[in-house]
């Protein structure tokens, strides 16, 4: 009986952890899709990302993102409205100008931080 309870406990703990991991993976995957989609982030228009084809060079390559943005909120703000850092920037204000939602930008940021 005790062994059975213990096994059941372990199973639930594992199932919970797996669910959370899947959720994170889904977030990152969704972020990636938003980055690639030409009608959404369309980030490749200006930024090089890993091995993605035909990237633009208007902006810096998206590499070493965790090191460059140890504070996640700074990266979020850059995507939300890049003009706060540089009023003359060519980068669209994805959040402020209602191109992407807060949720979508959070997903993009999660993906970008894996680069």
């Amino acid at each position: 009986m005790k062994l059975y309870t213990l096994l059941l406990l372990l199973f639930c703990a594992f199932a919970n952890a797996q669910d959370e991991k899947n959720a994170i993976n889904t977030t990152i995957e969704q972020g990636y899709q938003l980055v690639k989609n030409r009608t959404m982030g369309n980030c490749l228009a200006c930024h090089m990302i890993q091995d993605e084809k035909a990237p633009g060079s208007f902006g810096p390559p998206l590499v070493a993102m965790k090191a460059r943005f140890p504070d996640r909120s700074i990266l979020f703000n850059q995507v939300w409205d890049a003009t706060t850092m540089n009023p003359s920037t060519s980068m669209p204000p994805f959040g402020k100008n209602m191109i992407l939602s807060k949720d979508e930008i959070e997903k993009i940021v999660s993906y970008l931080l894996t680069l």
Partner: protein
Amino acid sequence: MIIKKTVVVLLLTFLLSNCDSSQSDEKIDLNSDPNKVSDNVADSKKILDNAKNALKNVDAEFQWRDTHLILENADKAMNAGDFKLSIDLSNKVIQQTVLMTEQKQFANEYWQDLIPKSN
């Protein structure tokens, strides 16, 4: 013994219920009032008209490409009786017209910042 078994069963039930980490079901608003929905037709029309006027008043040079499509969808939603959606979309249009107006003001003040300096 029976108490012990009962406790074990209860504990198991509690533990098993925590296995489910999926999204909770959408809560049903038990307070929704069907009369409240139909009253919104007046609000919906008013806000839609505000949105139409706001968009018309934006300088042609600072109009955005897709805002009129949101306005059309707000109109369709209202005609279909989905007043909540119509109001949401109309508000979205109004929000965008505010951004367009700010954009025009910013351009008026700061357009020269983009002129290249030769030295």
